[in-house]
Structure formats: C-alpha cells, structure tokens
C-alpha cells in the first residue's frame, strides 16, 4: 500500500506552555466489501484527537449468496456493487477525502471472476479495490480491537482468545502472556452455513441441532490440537449483530457480559423466530436471514472456548483500515506491539516443527547484525528486518518433514501456516527466503507469475543474508560469541568474529556461501577471526 504522508495537513495550535505545535490531520475513507453488505466509513485522523468517525454508510448487497452458492458473482450483483461503490466515491469526494483503502474479503476473494470484477470496478468507479487475504483481514479486525479498548493490554494478561466470526469463516486466535501465539481459520461462517444447509434445510426439523453438529465437527480438530490444556478466561468475540445482542442482554452498553448471563439469554432467544429476533435486537428486518445461524454459531463457540467473560466490541473492518493507516502515517501511536505478536506466533510455529532454538537465535543475531551493517545501501525497512527474523526462526522447519526436500517442505509449511499480521505477499517473502537459504536462487522468470521484481529482489537480499549468517553457525554450536561489522568504502563489509573455539568450519562455509551476498549487494565480504579466551 502506498503511504500518503503527503496528504497530511498540518495546522498550528498553541499548547498550554505557549509553544506552537503542529497537529497532523487527514481525512481517510475505508470501504469494506463484505459478504452481505458494503460499508463506507469516513474518518478524520489527527495527531491531537486520534481517530474520529465522521460518516458511516452501509448498503446491503448479498455477494455471499452468489459466491458461497454458485462460486461467482452474477451480472446483476456486480452491477449493484459498482453502483454502490460509485455512490460511495461521490460521498468520499464530498468530504474531499485525502486517502482511502477499499478492501474486499472472502466473498470477493473466492469468486472465480475476481479479476474481471476488479477491472469493472476500476473502470466504472475509479476505485482500486484490494483483495485481502484471510490473515490480512483478520489482522485488521484484531488491530481495531486492540485500538478500541484502552484496557486491551490488561485483558490479554489473562488467557484470552479472540474469535472473529465472519460470513465465510471463523478465525480463532489465542493469546499467551500478552502475545498472540496461534491463529487458525475454520471455514464455517454464518453465511456459508446458510448456503451449505439451504439444500437440505427443509428436511431437517431442527435447524439449530444441524448447525450445532456441523460446527462441533469442524471444531473437533482444532480442539485437539490447540485447546487441549488451555483455559480461556476472556473471550473477545467479534461478529455481526453481537453488539446488539449484548446490548439487549445487559443493562450497560459496554460490550462486556458475564458468561452465565449470556448463556441464559441465548437459551431464551433460541425459542424465537428470526423475525422476532431482529425485533428483539432492534435490527433491520433484512437481517432476519442470518440472525439464527449467527446466534447458534456464537453459542457453540462460547461452549467450545468456555470463557468466564465475554467482550463483544462493535467492530468493522473499516475501523481496522483506519487504524492501520493512521499508524503507518504516524498520526497515532501504537497501543500494542503487533510485531511482538508476530514474533511470538512464529516462535510457536518453530517450536511445533522442532527448530533448534539455540541455533536460530544465534543465526538471528548474526543476520540482524549483517542487515544493520549494510543498512546504508540495502534499501529495506524495519518491516523487512522483521521478515528476516521470521525467516531465520523458520529456516530449518522443513527437516520436520523430510531431510531430502527440506527447503521445499519448509516453503510449504510457511505458506500453509497463517500468521496474523502478515500479508500474503509477506508470507511469500518469508517462505522463499527460507527456501533459497539452501536451494539455488533461480532467475526472476521463475517467479514472474507470482512476484513483482521488487519482491524478487527483497527475497534475494534476505536469502543472501540468511545464507551468510547460517553458515557462520554451521556447526550449530554457537561458537561465535561476538561479531563486529564494519562497512567500508561503500563496497566492503568486514565481519570480525570473536570466538574461543576453532572456527575453521564456519569460516570455510561462509567463504563459499558469501558469494551470493556479494552478487546481490555488490559488496565484498571480508571475514576475520579473532581468537579470544573467554572469561569465565
């Protein structure tokens, strides 16, 4: 995504001390193309007042019915979609919006005619719609949760799970000691259930029972793998209609509710018809179609997770988009370190595939030093540094499957493991970096169908650093206890390794593997060894 720093307006204010401060301000629009409605939010982002919602417009269009039913969007639906987006565009123009993001999720992602649709939208509305991968989408939800609640940090001190129920699927994320460690996607969203069951609904006397069985089945594997010995104290439940349900169930409008209270309400509501339910929750009548499926799904999830407390914030992907933008444009400060979440999650994955922790910590330290050592010329940013760390942690996970094809296995493991907060492309970068740590690096033509040249180069750079660093701990014995880097004359990187032990193997390996680094960066690597006696 392009960062629109240029669009920030500045205006002076005089603070209490009489000093002129410049407040950053911008108007941002977020469009969320969901399975049953298209939403537009206009935000004002300012360094003084944070994020302020200015306008919120929703139009219900059931893309999900087409996608989950027939696999592609009908002509009529696309036309409706374009018309709505065109109207949204004119609302955005009305506010003189300075930047926007328009995102689509699974309902569009899973259509077979996706590219045609995106082109039609571009053509008719001038809007560029991004299609979010599941993890990107969930990360946005997660981000808006983290920003919305001041006590978020406190909540996650206790064992917490975030369950994000969408129309297409359910995302379950588990926290361990303030960090997000696992996240899994189960494909049983409210709308998907409706479409799945619509075929034999009329033969099933008890729709509720049917949904429960379906959900329990899908959940069983997850329970075995991830929930075994876990207890969940707090459940953050994100989903449609939930804020209304909680508002109805509790007297206060905080979004919090105790487990027993909600359970008893659910029991009461299960006896009502969908029409009665929308009435009870004061929702528009068109929501009657989904209300029952959603409710049973929530009830089931709560039983599976078994929390004491439930928090159901009113959340929209649009909010996440705004937080994300505001954070990147440096209008607001982060409330929670999302990078630590990513590191913690990857650490859990590395553990599952029995990666050698001492080894990857060593390699990580060296790799980061090399990365920082050539920072003046490498043209990469903090995010790439994080990706390098992730690649280091996972670089040997392929051995878990096979010693022969470890690099390819590693690639596949990374590509099939969801890490919340990583975009699809970032995952691709990490997976390829891991793969070409050992495999020969192919020419761009090999990737041309998947990657832009820019990303190809990033992979090359990261892989070359990883190769060098990995070589420096070839023996897996962490012989080197300090390394000094010096970047000289713009074309030479000197690495001085201090060790009490003999490092012939490492230096030899590095000597043969530094070639790739030299090719990629145009920097020659000088390896020096300094024998030191380690003080005890």
């Amino acid at each position, binding site marked *: 995504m392009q960062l629109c720093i240029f669009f920030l307006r500045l205006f002076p204010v005089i603070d209490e001390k009489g000093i002129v401060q410049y*407040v950053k301000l911008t108007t941002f629009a977020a469009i969320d193309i969901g399975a049953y409605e298209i939403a537009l939010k206009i935000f*004002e982002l300012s360094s003084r007042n944070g994020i302020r919602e200015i306008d919120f417009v929703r*139009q219900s269009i059931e893309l999900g019915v087409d996608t989950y039913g027939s696999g592609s969007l009908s002509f009529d639906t696309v036309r409706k979609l374009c018309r709505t987006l065109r109207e949204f565009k004119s609302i955005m123009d009305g506010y003189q919006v300075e930047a926007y993001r328009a995102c689509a999720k699974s309902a569009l992602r899973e259509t077979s005619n996706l590219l045609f649709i995106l082109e039609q939208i571009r053509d008719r509305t001038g809007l560029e719609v991004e299609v979010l991968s599941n993890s990107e989408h969930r990360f946005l939800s997660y981000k808006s949760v983290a920003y919305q609640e001041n006590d978020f940090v406190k909540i996650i001190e206790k064992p917490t799970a975030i369950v994000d129920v969408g129309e297409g699927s359910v995302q379950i994320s588990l926290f361990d000691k303030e960090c997000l460690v696992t996240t899994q996607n189960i494909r049983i969203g409210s709308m998907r259930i409706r479409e799945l069951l619509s075929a034999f609904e009329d033969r099933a006397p008890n729709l509720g029972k049917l949904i429960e069985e379906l959900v329990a089945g899908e959940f069983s594997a997850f329970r075995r793998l991830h929930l075994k010995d876990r207890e969940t104290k707090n459940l953050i439940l994100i989903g449609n209609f939930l804020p209304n349900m909680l508002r109805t169930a509790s007297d206060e409008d905080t979004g919090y509710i105790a487990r027993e209270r909600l359970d008893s309400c659910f029991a009461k509501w299960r006896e009502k018809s969908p029409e009665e339910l929308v009435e009870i929750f004061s929702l528009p009548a068109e929501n009657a179609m989904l209300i029952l499926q959603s409710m049973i799904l929530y009830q089931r999830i709560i039983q599976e997770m078994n929390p004491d407390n439930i928090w159901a914030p009113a959340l929209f992907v649009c909010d996440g988009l705004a937080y994300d933008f505001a954070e990147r444009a440096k209008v607001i400060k982060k409330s929670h370190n999302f990078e630590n979440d990513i590191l913690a999650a990857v650490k859990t994955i590395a553990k599952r595939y029995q990666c050698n922790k001492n080894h990857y910590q060593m390699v990580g330290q060296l790799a980061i030093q090399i990365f920082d050592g050539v920072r003046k010329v490498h043209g990469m940013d903090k995010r790439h540094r994080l990706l390098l760390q992730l690649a280091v942690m996972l670089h040997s996970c392929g051995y878990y499957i096979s010693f022969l094809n470890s690099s390819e296995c590693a690639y596949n493991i990374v590509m099939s493991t969801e890490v919340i907060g990583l975009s699809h492309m970032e995952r691709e970068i990490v997976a390829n970096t891991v793969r070409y740590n050992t495999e020969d690096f192919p020419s761009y033509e090999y990737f041309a169908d998947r990657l832009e040249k820019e990303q190809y180069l990033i992979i090359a750079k990261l892989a070359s650093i990883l190769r060098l660093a990995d070589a420096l701990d070839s023996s897996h014995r962490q012989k080197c206890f300090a390394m000094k880097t010096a970047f000289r004359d713009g074309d030479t990187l000197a690495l001085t390794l201090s060790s009490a032990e003999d490092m012939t193997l490492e230096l030899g390996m590095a000597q043969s593997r530094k070639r790739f680094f030299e090719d990629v960066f145009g920097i020659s690597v000088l390896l020096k060894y300094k024998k030191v006696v380690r003080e005890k």
Partner: protein
Amino acid sequence: MKTEEQLNFNDPKYYRNRELSWLDFNAHVLYEARDKSLPLFERLKFLSITASNLDEFFMIRVASLKDMVHAGYTKKDIAGLSPQEQLDRISVKTHEMIKLQYNTYNRSLVPLLSTNGLHVLASHEEMTDEQKEFADQYFQDFVYPVLTPMAVDSSRPFPLIRNKTLNICALLEKGKETDMATVQVPGVLPRIVTLSQDDNGTTVILLEELIKRNIQQLFMNYRVVSAYAYRIMRNADLTIEEDEAADLLKEIQKQLKKRQWGEVIRLEVDENMDKRLLKWLRRELHVREEDIYKIAGPLDLTVLMKMYGLEGFEHLKTPPFQPAPVPEMIEEGDIFSKIRKGDILLHHPYQTFDPVVDFVRESARDPQVLAIKQTLYRVSGNSPIIKALAEAAENGKQVSVLVELKARFDEENNIVWAKMLEKAGCHVIYGLVGLKTHSKITLVVRREEEGIRRYVHLGTGNYNDSTAKLYTDMGLLTCAQAIGEDATAVFNMLSGYSEPPSWKKLHLAPLWLRDTLVRLIRREAENARNKKPAHIIAKMNSLCDREIIAELYAASAAGVKIELIVRGICCLKTGIPGVSENITVRSIVGQFLEHSRIFYFENASAPKLFMGSADWMPRNLDKRVEIMFPVEDPKLKEEVIHILNVQLADTVKAHILSSDGVYERQDLRGKQRFISQEYFMQEAWQKVKPEDNPVKSRVFVPEMGVDDM
C-alpha cells in the same frame, strides 16, 4: 391501582371522532371572526379561513368517508363510529356551522363594513342608477366576452360543472316550454367589482350579481325567469388518505368500478333558488338531500380574503408585525462562529426567519463548506433557500436535497424547482416509497482547521420564508457533535442506506419515535406512582393517535398532570372520571397559526424537552419521516419552558376543551386579559438590545473610541 388496570383505555367511548373534533376547531376559528374586540378586517380574514378550511375538509376528509361508504367499508373509527354515522353527524354539524358563518357575515360584518365606509351590495337591485350604468359597461367590456352560457335541452346534455367553481343557473322560458341553462362565473376576473368610491366610502358588488343582472343578454331567444348561483364540490381526489388502513385501499381497488368518479359531494345553492331549478340540479348532479346547503348570502366566502386585500382600510387591520432580529445573530462574524458559541434557539414569526436563510446562503458561499443537505417539504414560490442551494452546487459543494413530492396541493410547484436544482448540479431525492418526508432538517458539513465540523438546523416548520411570517415555529441551530452525527445518519437513511447502529440524540419516525414517546409517557406514569414529580406539557397541532392517547389516559390515571396545547384535531376527551381528570386541553387560535410542536416531560425534576416536526397522529408516527430532537442547553431549555408557560397563561385566545367536548373561552372574572402571541411579539423586540433596535431607542450612541474598549 386496581381500577386503573381494570379500565380499558382503548374503549371508543373515551375518544372523540377526529372529523367532529376538526369541526370544533373550525368553530373556534369562526369564534374569532365573531370576536368584536378584533379589527374588522381581521374578522373578515378569519371568516374566510373557516370557509377555505371547510372546502379542504370536504375535498379530503368527507370525500374519503364517502369512498368508504361506497366500498362498503364499515370499520369503526377511534370513537366507534362507522363511516356513514360520521357523515351523518358531519352533515348536521356543517349545516349549523354554515348557518353561523352567514349569520356572522350578514348580521355583523356587512353592517359594520358599511358603517366603516365599505358598502357591499348584496344584490344588483341595490345599485344606484350611476352604478348600474358603470356595471353594465363593465359587463359589456370585460365580462361578456369571457362567458360561455350553456343551455340544456334534449339535444344538449348537462355540461360538466367543474369542481369548486361558482356557477349561475337560469330558468328559461320560450313560449310554453321551460328550459334550464348554466353559466360559469369566470375565474379569471376579480370577483369583487368596485362600483364607486366617494365621500360616502367604497361600494362594491360581487361579479355574479353583475352577470345575473345582464343574464338576459346571454339567452336572447328565451325569457329568463330567474337566475341563481350555485357551487359544487366533487370527490375528485384520486389519492386515498394515508391515515386510512391499508385494507381500505385494497377494498377500494376491488370496488374501483363501482366508485363514481367525480361524484358531487356537496352542492351549495342560493337559499332562494327556484324549486324547479334545484330539483333539476339535484337530478343532474345526483346529489343527496343532506349534501345540499342552502346559503343565505354570497357563495364561497373565501372571497373575503380578497376583500381583506382592498386598499384604504389599513386602520381596520392589525398592523403587520415586523419580526425581531435574533440577538445571537446581531454580532459581527460569520454564522458558523456564532453557532460555535452555543446553540441558538429561533422562535418564528416573533423572530425573523433570516438566520435560517442565511445559514444556507452563507454555507453556499463559504469556501470551507463541503456539503449541504436539506429536506424540503413545502417551499415558497420564489424561495431564497432554493436559490442558495443551487448556488452552492454551482460553487462545487455537494448538495443533496430531499424533495417531498407528496406534499398535498404543492406537487406541481415542487417538481418545477426540483428540476431546477437538479440542473444546477444538486443531488435530488424525490421522496421515499410509501413514506412522506415531513422532517425539517438541514446539515452543513464544513472542513475547518481542526477538522470536520457539522452544523445542523432542526425545525418544527417548513423551510418556507413566507409561511414563517404567519406560522409560529421553533428552530434550533447547533453544532453539537452527537446531533451532527445523527443528522448525517438521517440523510444516509434518506438516501437509501442502512440505518445506523444506534441513534444518539434524534428520534425518528416511522421507526423509533412512537416507542420513544410511549416510553417517555410511561416513565412519567411510573414516577407519579412512586410519588415523584410527574408532569407532561405537550404542544402540537393535532392529537389523534389511539395508542398515545391511551398512554396519556393511563398516565393521567396514575396521577400525572398533563397539559396539552392542541390547536386542531384532538380525539382525547378531558374530565372523564378515573381516566382523564388530570388532563387539560387548550386550543390557541390567534393572529398567527400555531404550528410548533414542543414536548415537556418532568422526568422526576430532571426535565426532558423535545421539539419536532411530528404531531401525535397515526400518519405522522407511522407513515412519515419525522424528527423529534432534544433541547439540552440549560439556557435554551429555560426559554422553551418559558414559551410553554406563556401559552398556558393565555386567557383570551386559548379556549379550553370542556368535558362536554366543546371548546369554551375562559371566564375572565378575576383574571388578567393575556394574549400569548402579543406577549411574544413584545418580548422578541425586548430581547434585542436597544442599540440594535433604532426604532425603539431615541438616544443615539456614539461609536466608542478604540481606547475606550
């Protein structure tokens, strides 16, 4: 407590029929026409208003009841009356009313006009020779060329007589044969003809008398035996009144063929009309006996409005009131900075409507304004607001206007300027399917240095600068964030988008307002039961919603003091033991048309105050987009409460609904004469500081030097 529960507040015996109640209201207006303390010409005006009111009542309400009768629809109304029963009672009551109208006209107004130098000749025979000469010349020059006499015989069928036109029918003789003929009194000519003006005063006559005098010229081959005026009203309204149930609509569609299009529902005739002519008209027009009104005087008294307009009688009229400026608006600076200082309350017509027009106009020109959104219901012909909106669109602002095409009688007018707005680049929404948009709201979005700020005007009356001089209405200008957000949501909903997750300050019909009102009334009842202070004051134009009235009865029974200020229809009955003993209803009819809707709820000494566009009628609460908004600024709250109290203190123009269902004027013994509208007129000017009001102040204040500041 028990008795309270046992009572069925929905029992029809606790309700008044809305049509009969409306007729009572018209009687109240007629009372004003008979009020000797009023300037003579004002009395003419009130009499004219009763006549035009009655016309509208027939065209809309009576027509609708007739439809029901024809469709065989027998569902009883709120008071338990079938359509036919209602028609019967209406007929009796309107006959009485018309009698009183003409009594007033003939016995008091005409003689008084004469003493004041305006001689209205009742018939052409009363003219002097000079006047006759003038009249005949006038007839030849102007009237004769535009007349189309139509004789009726076996070869020429009865012609189509147009709705609401004045006609003259004549009995003709040719040898031994008699024939009938009819001629329309041309609408293109002024109905009042000035015959002479001299020291004795002005003498006028009505056009139909001139035609009657010269009618022989129209039927040269016949001898005209006699000629009389008549007027008909047809059931030509194709739309079904929205108040009626949907099942009625179906019923009528089924019966469509049976419906007699353009059926005559009222025939007014000169009381002296020849029996043969009357019989003939009755037969040809298919009128029932009870729908014939024999009139002792000129037909169609709306002509009195024209008489009011005659020049030279200014001393017999109430001098026109000059609306006072709004104090908050006088200071230097743009309107936005004034609103930012605090919410501004507007009380029309005592205070000028200019701030509302300026609000739109300044927004159109202000470079920081991004968008203007407004709902328009009835707009004046040459509206400055429309001009400003068009200008705004031309200046590149995003302008959205919801134009309500279903506004009664205004449809054509609305379409013309709606097209004009569209041409200028405004986004025009032509109403919502199945709903009338009655709310009055304007939203201005402005991009200021510190970010987007929204300015909102909410009102109880239409954005019409002409009626704002005649109707009493309230308005609120605010930039409160919560109201701005709700206003944005209102326009999103009106544009067809989904409703917002929640409302912060505004209460909208048709979805939420009814529930809110019920909740507010119930809370008062609950407070009364718990011996907390409980009090409702509600001012509106009409009250006829069964659910709301039942809630009011329940609240009254629980001990809530309820003071209602209802100008027009009121289906609630006062003074029913155990049901409505704590309810009083007063109707204010005065120089200005009472139009504002204000609602006060005691809320255990933490009063809640609302204003809005909705009456408590089923159509307002269920079939219209209406907004009720809170007044929260403590100072403004005080002011609005003060306004309510002043109206409750009115001893002259407020008539009290008695337990017998009639509006009674108040017994002034031991009381001061106090007229709320006069008080407001004075107060509005007193609020303006003397230096801003050069008219009232004779002391000139020199500009202060800079040093003195």
